[in-house]
Each structure stands twice: as structure tokens, then as C-alpha cells.
């Protein structure tokens, strides 16, 4: 790993949403969507956040773009205070952080021509000279694999994959440093996914982009991410670089998650050795005391239910939050 400074640092990020009271005498409750998350993303790298629905991964993405209310913690982008910026300061920082969304059907305005959609961020954030912007839009279209003359069309005239390309061009229009990809391929057909993933890889090399990549698909994450964090109920339970993450997952949840992915390889050595988790994740409103995964964990002991596990380091930047990983870094699943 290089010595370069991280582009994005997130420290103790919390996003809590108040829930409307159900009755006069009911206590006010809170959804702990993101509950103390810290990580940093190196310039030019891809940081992946995986987790099941409701784990809070999209809320992390929205908080980094300042589209979700930040309840606690701090964020810095390129040394500047992203978490506390307001008004004009925030607008300037937003130029450097852009997001591409999951659903290419609902994230483009159907009444605007796609050229205007891609140009809008340039006009709003004063990127480049106004007379050069049309040229810049055409160039972006070529870059994402569309044709310059297609700028005059409307979103409905494109296929899903092409619309996602328009979304990518729009995200790149303000020449950002950090691009948040929130499930960018999960709404697309399998054959189209490969086209978009390859495009994202090419654009990263061409523009030196840094990606924060949110996904529930471990195959896609393994393909594109340099570093990966697993999220469960608003917190990170494991974080490691790609090689360590897949070779030796430490947290029992990561281990179960990886083993639950059906493999198309019939010769796969681990075939049929799947760990099944029972039940669903608990509600982010009434959080269990102790480890949040304890209720579904096949190894849970008494202390797991009462004590909150620390997010510990196990060498080479590999971190996990589990009581049952011993001091030599041997996880419980290896003691079976």
C-alpha cells in the first residue's frame, strides 16, 4: 500500500433518525441507521461497503454526500471539513463528491434531455467556461460509451445500461475526486453489468477517481474493490483489504455471508459447506445489548449478549468486532 494521504476520512459517523411517537405516553424512539462508523479511503482506490438491506450502507453513502443528516462524528475530504461544512462552503465541497444511483430509471429527470442533465452540474457549480461546456458534455458522452449526438435524446429513449452511463456522465460532470457508487449495477441485467463494471474500472484509471462502492453483491465487490468493510445494523463488523477479506474472513457474519453466495463453479471446494444464519437482522430501533449479531450467530456465548465487542486490529489493517476471535487472530469458525 502506498503512503498517500487518505482522500476521505470518516470518524465515528452517526446518522440517527427520530421515529414519530406512536402514542402520547410512548417514549420517543430513534432509528440508529449509522451508529459510529470510521474508515478512510486512499486516493485512487476503491473502498467497498457490503451488507444486507437495512444495514445502513446507503445511509453511509448519503451522509458522505451530505444528503443525510449527520448526527455525530466528523468527515474530512482532502483535508477540508466535509462533516461541518454549510452553505457556500458545502457547495464548493460537493463539486468534489458526486454520487451515482442504483436505479437508472428513477434517477434521471424524464422531462429533460440527457445532454442537459449532464450539463446541469457544470452550470450549477461553475465548472469550466460556459462556452466550453457543450464540448465537455459531448466528450463525457464519448468517455462513457455513448455517442455525442445522443445528448439531444430523452431518458426513455435509452436502455437501462445506457441510462446508467448517462448517470455516470452526470456524476463525472463536475470533475469530482470522490464518486459514491450506490449499487450501480444491481438494477441491470447480468450481461449489462459487465459493461458498466469495466467502464467504471476504465474511468478510474483515466480520471484518477476514488470510489466509495456500496453493494450487496460480494462477487461484484471482490471484482472492483481494494478494501472492503462489512456493515451490520449500522456498524462495521469487519474491514480488510481484498486478499485478506476473502482468503480469511474473521467475523462469523462475514464468513456466513461469503458462504451463502451460491457458486456457479461445480468443482468449488467449499461446495455444500454453507453456514445458514437463522432469522433476520433485529430492528435498528430496539438494538440488542452486547454484540448486535449475537442473536443470529452460531457461536454466540453469554458475554456476546452482554458486552459490546471492540473493533480490534488483527495485523495488516485487518479489523473485526468479535469477542470470539482469540489473541492469535483465530476466528471461532476455524475451531469447528
Amino acid at each position, binding site marked *: 500500500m502506498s503512503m498517500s494521504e487518505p482522500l476521505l476520512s470518516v470518524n465515528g459517523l452517526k446518522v440517527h433518525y427520530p421515529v414519530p411517537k406512536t402514542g402520547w405516553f410512548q417514549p420517543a424512539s430513534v432509528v440508529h441507521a449509522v451508529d459510529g462508523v470510521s474508515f478512510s479511503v486512499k486516493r485512487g482506490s476503491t473502498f467497498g461497503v457490503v451488507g444486507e438491506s437495512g444495514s445502513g450502507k446507503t445511509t453511509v453513502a448519503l451522509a458522505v454526500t451530505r444528503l443525510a443528516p449527520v448526527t455525530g462524528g466528523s468527515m474530512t475530504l482532502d483535508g477540508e471539513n466535509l462533516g461541518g461544512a454549510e452553505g457556500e462552503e458545502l457547495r464548493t465541497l460537493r463539486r468534489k463528491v458526486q454520487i451515482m444511483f442504483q436505479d437508472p430509471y428513477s434517477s434521471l429527470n424524464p422531462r429533460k434531455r440527457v445532454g442537459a442533465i449532464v450539463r446541469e452540474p457544470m452550470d450549477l457549480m461553475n465548472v469550466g467556461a460556459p462556452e466550453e461546456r457543450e464540448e465537455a458534455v459531448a466528450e463525457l458522452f464519448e468517455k462513457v460509451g455513448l455517442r455525442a449526438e445522443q445528448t439531444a435524446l430523452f431518458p426513455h429513449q435509452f436502455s437501462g445500461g445506457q441510462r446508467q452511463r448517462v448517470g455516470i456522465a452526470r456524476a463525472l460532470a463536475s470533475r469530482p475526486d470522490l464518486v459514491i457508487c450506490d449499487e450501480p449495477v444491481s438494477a441491470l*441485467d447480468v450481461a449489462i453489468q459487465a459493461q458498466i463494471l469495466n467502464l467504471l474500472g476504465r474511468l478510474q484509471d483515466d480520471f484518477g477517481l476514488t470510489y466509495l462502492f456500496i453493494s450487496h453483491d460480494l462477487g461484484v465487490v471482490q471484482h*472492483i474493490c481494494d478494501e472492503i468493510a462489512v456493515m451490520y445494523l449500522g456498524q462495521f463488523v469487519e474491514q480488510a483489504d481484498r486478499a485478506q477479506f476473502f482468503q480469511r474472513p474473521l467475523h462469523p457474519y462475514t464468513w456466513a455471508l461469503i458462504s451463502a453466495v451460491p457458486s456457479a463453479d461445480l468443482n468449488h471446494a467449499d461446495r455444500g459447506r454453507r453456514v445458514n444464519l437463522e432469522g433476520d437482522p433485529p430492528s435498528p430501533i430496539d438494538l440488542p445489548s452486547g454484540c448486535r449479531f449475537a442473536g443470529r450467530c452460531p457461536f454466540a456465548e453469554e458475554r456476546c449478549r452482554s458486552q459490546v465487542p471492540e473493533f480490534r486490529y488483527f495485523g495488516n489493517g485487518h479489523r473485526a468486532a468479535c469477542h470470539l476471535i482469540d489473541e492469535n487472530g483465530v476466528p471461532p469458525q476455524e475451531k469447528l
Partner: protein
Amino acid sequence: MNVARTAPLLEVDNLQVEFSTRRGIARVLDGISLSLTAGETLGIVGESGCGKSMTALSIMGLVPQPPGRIAGGEIRLGGEELLGATELRMRQIRGNEISMIFQEPMTSLNPVYTVGDQIAETVVEHEGLSKREAMNRATEMLRAVKIPAAEQRVREYPHQLSGGMRQRVMIAMALACRPQVLIADEPTTALDVTVQAQVFDLLKDLQEVSKTTIILITHDMGAIAEMADHVAVMYAGRIIETGSVEEILKDPRHPYTKGLISCVPHLVREPPADRPVLLEIPGVVPPLTDLGRGCAFELRCAMRQARCRTEKPKSRETTPDHLCACWVVEEKASV
């Protein structure tokens, strides 16, 4: 395996379905033939719009007519012809002998009835049980699909259940009358992997007990490897390759099947240090109103020849029980 020797339970023979659209006639199914024996699982794969769900709806007798039209072919269940059956007879068959699980457990359940009512309705309709007996059956079914506290859940509404539980309710409903054939249309697409694993295990357990024939529609080759005995790969309304799951996954012949398998980043234990470029299938599925004379995949195919543009490839046997419709792939005889 001598599965092939036993008489087929469900047979689809040269099924043709057309839809009239503003742009002309779209042939959404063009000569589909399938044969399934009892207790077998057939996986149907392909991109959206290739006819997977339409095949399922045709078997269920649920093709909206108009604008749809069954232009030809036969569907037989245990020897009985379904395409000419009366609507009354189809109502007896649907939910009783053939039932279906839909992709979206959120939208396929009725939000204003309890899940127990919805399961019981099928049983009352088909088996003439009393309301009370039917509710007992519903509770039993919820227990069979491993929903905890079934006695309590049976009185709850869909919004009170999680996505995984709703999909189990769908499965319970589909299996309440012990159907011979279960069609599962992308049953786990909306679910998380850990819940998907639970649903797959559940389907396998239930199949073992009741010898149900399953048609699994999916775009995920991993799900196919996990569940299916046989696979049919569809493209633009046709089956372009079919064979046993081993044959298709280990030795795919059709360029489209090969593409479908290798364009997905598969999870491996030892990932490579640098990011490999994924194989792409260029372009998109052509509009079904505008299929030329030749192979529908021709424009996206890296191996196309002159003949592919002018003549539709016929399904030919490459190895026993492995059929492939591609001019470029050699026949068994010529190997």
C-alpha cells in the same frame, strides 16, 4: 440417472406466443419445448425480455389475451392438454396442481388480508375444507416453511413481516395444496444472500418430501448450480441451449451461454491482485418485433458467420441430451 426413462409429468411442445404491439407482432415465444419428470428441477436462465416469465405464464394459463395470443404448440400435464382446457378446468389446476411463486413478495400479497386468510383461500377453493380446517392447514404450512411463532404470524398482515418471511408465505401459499409442479419466478432476487440461502434450502427440503417438480426462473448461474438438475438457456423467445446442469456449466457450447457465465464476477477464495477486465456481451437484446431471418444473437456474437444472418439455427445435439442452437457449434456426428 434414468430420469429420462420415466414418463414426463409436464411437457411443453413447440409453444408459440405472440403479442400485438404498436410496432407490430412480437413473437415472444418461438417454439419452446420442455419436458420435466416428477421431482426434477429445471432452471431457465436468460436476460430480461427473453421469454422466461412468459413461458411460466403460458404454463399457468395466465397469458393476457388480448394482446397476447397462443399461436401454436401444446402444453400437457400428466397427459392432459392444457392449452384447450376450459377456464373452469384451469382454475382447478392453478394453485392445486401447478402453482407459482412470484419475484416480488412485497407486491404479490394482498395487503388487506392476513397471511392466514390468503393461504386458507387456496385450500378452501381447491379442497373444500371448512374455514377453520383451512386456517389450521395455513398454520401448518407456515410451520413447514419455518416461520417462527406460526400460530401468531398466521393472523398477521403482510406489512408486519420481513421480506424473507413474506417470500416464505408465498411459498407456503403455493405449496398449500401440494402441487405437482411449482414455478418459481426469480424467487430470491429481492432477497439478501443469507435469506436466499434459507429459501433455497427450504425449497430443496420440501421437494425431497413431496417430489414436487420445480421450474426455477433466474438470471443467476450460481442459483442454477445450487438448485437445478437441467438447464434451459433462453434468448429472444427461443431456447438456445439445454442440457444437464453439469453439461451447461462445465461445457457451455453456445456463445451466449458462455458469455452469460463469464460476464459475471464469480466469488473466489484467492482473488487476483489486479482487477481483470470482465468479458462483455456487447449491445442489448434486439426488439422482438424486429427479429431478422437469422439467429437473434447474431449482432452481439463474436463468432458470427455469414450463415448466421440468413438462417435460423436449429437445435442440434452436441453430446447426448445436450442441445444447442448455433451454426458455429459442431454437431455430435461431425466431431
